[in-house]
């Protein structure tokens, strides 16, 4: 069975046709529980997200701030396995029909087997993978497997990426480009800096792929700001916080996730609205 890269591409194209940004939500699988995570991601998509990224928790998440680290720890301590992550992808996609990507670090994929992981992710209905510690220079083996199985390879670009590197990265990537809004790890921020807008412009100069912005976006106002210059807005830690704040009350957590997805969804649809 081929992966859903074409579904991902068409959902992003549809958002563009509607003159709005796409909303991409992230949660680690297995958080707060495996089934709770599946329900939370389904709520995200029902509430306003267009695309979801399923995190495969890793013992050493060097690019994640304390919020996602906490969620990863909860999932890992409960014994989550890669097969559980694949089940999450399968059930969320089956329940919603939405594009579902996997986001993780390179070692779990390397250890599981590159070809096997790509095949199993595609078979589960996955649309692609984001591997933020796999630089383009080391990515050829993965890209071949992903292409063969109909999966997108989404690369991350950063404000420090020089133009010639941006061209090299976007030429190798597919699906969309993940533009990190700032130099730092995941987490909510008070504001999204101007360097994100500059990075999106420099990235667009090298590719026709949609450019989605992540890191630091947590509320509707920030989503609206970013949607004014990007093809998509990626939100992770703010969703994790909804579930952490519910402190075990899963229904309250799910309601908060759905509400936030709705607010962010309104934000990405109000692009071009007058700025304050």
């Amino acid at each position: 069975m081929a992966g859903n890269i074409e579904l991902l591409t068409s959902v992003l194209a549809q958002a563009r046709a509607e003159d709005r940004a796409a909303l991409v939500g992230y949660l680690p699988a297995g958080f707060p529980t495996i089934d709770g995570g599946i329900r939370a991601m389904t709520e995200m998509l029902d509430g306003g997200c267009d695309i979801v990224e399923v995190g495969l928790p890793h013992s050493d998440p060097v690019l994640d701030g304390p919020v996602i680290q906490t969620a990863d720890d909860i999932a890992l301590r409960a014994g989550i396995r890669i097969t559980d992550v694949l089940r999450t992808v399968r059930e969320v996609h089956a329940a919603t029909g939405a594009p579902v990507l996997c986001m993780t670090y390179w070692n779990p994929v390397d250890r599981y087997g590159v070809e096997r992981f790509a095949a199993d992710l595609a078979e589960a209905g996955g649309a692609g993978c984001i591997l933020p510690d796999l630089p383009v220079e080391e990515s050829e083996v993965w890209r071949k497997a992903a292409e063969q199985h109909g999966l997108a390879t989404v690369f991350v670009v950063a404000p420090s990426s020089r133009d010639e590197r941006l061209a090299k990265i976007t030429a190798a990537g597919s699906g969309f480009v993940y533009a990190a809004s700032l130099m730092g790890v995941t987490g909510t921020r008070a504001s999204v800096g101007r360097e994100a807008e500059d990075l999106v412009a420099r990235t667009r100069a090298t590719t026709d792929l949609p450019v989605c912005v992540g890191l630091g976006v947590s509320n509707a106002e920030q989503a609206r700001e970013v949607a004014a210059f990007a093809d998509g807005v990626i939100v992770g830690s703010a969703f994790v916080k909804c579930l952490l704040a519910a402190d075990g009350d899963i229904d309250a957590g799910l309601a908060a996730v759905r509400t936030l997805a709705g607010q962010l969804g309104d934000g990405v649809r109000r692009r071009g609205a007058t700025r304050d």
Partner: protein
Amino acid sequence: MSSESSRFFLPDPEGQVPSAEGYFGAFGGKFIPEALVAAVDEVAAEYEKAKADPAFAAELDDLMVNYTGRPSALTEVPRFAEHAGGARVFLKREDLNHTGSHKINNVLGQALLTKRMGKTRVIAETGAGQHGVATATACALFGLECTIYMGEVDTQRQALNVARMRMLGAEVIAVKSGSRTLKDAINEAFRDWVANVDRTHYLFGTVAGPHPFPALVRDFHRVIGVEARRQILERTGRLPDAALACVGGGSNAIGLFHAFLPDTGVRLIGCEPGGHGIETGEHAATLTEGTPGILHGSRSYVLQDEDGQITEPYSISAGLDYPGIGPEHAYLKDVGRAEYRAVTDDAAMQALRLLSRTEGIIPAIESAHALAGALEVGRELGPDGLLLVNLSGRGDKDMDTAARYFGLYGNDDQTGEGDK
């Protein structure tokens, strides 16, 4: 070439290993987030420029002689050697360097690189605190802002070194994530670096991490083996049968081994932390028990489960309590040029006490793993054997751990001859 006139800055003359992409055979590489690519490439480029600049070698040489106190001594330890099957044993005394370990060799080199890059802030990870102390020292010397990440467990068992770092003006941050040891300190340092890379150099402390760190850190430590090889030839007229060193990340071991790589008659033996014993699962013997994987920016052996999750290591020694290993060691193991064996906590502690009692030298618990390995290898070789051991650090920092282990606290006279 600067390296021909320098006595102490001795980058690999072959220049063949690693490859341009940073690979030692199948190991190494550069598995880093895009946000760090520019900074890591800048370190590599600046290091190449420094290698070609005689002024860099001259400044480092001056520091090595007049600040560190190089060359370090080579000490024969005959009373200790009586317990090693009668083999002759020589210790390379990196413990006598300023700050008390080999770590200063690499730190001074990278501090000079930091200045050349125009960066004003340095961050580093530390396990036992020896790399942190050396880094804090160099930052005081050069007027650089300094932040040290240290696992919370390690801040407790190496409290003296925390105080030393703070005395030197460094900020010490206790890392509370994961196993709260060296691995997690490195994770936190990487997070800091991503956020502050414009003005910050990550002064990596071992021969792991992304290219160019494995080769760069090794080059600054090559002086250990170059000096020791010359010294032991002068003293004994021949090369040793074996050169031994402890391995956590592997920096003191690669520094000792490298000058002997062409001397195929010299066995190179790395002593890994066997903790409570390999069979208990509580150890940090990465090359003995690990499998190939990616941790902290390079491919090497790692301790991991079937899903590629890094497993929590254990060692009594904070400096060896790490589930990874430098990629060049992984390469040397696979090609058979070096061998690695596990040494338990108990064997290391016995060797620590033995050297203290027979020679008046208190070694670091890390280095005591190599001493315990030497006792084993000496007994295998017999009286004709000649062993070289890297005494990578002194044991002052470990007195609290040793006092608890041997029961040395309390009012009564304790000889430490208890049942441990």
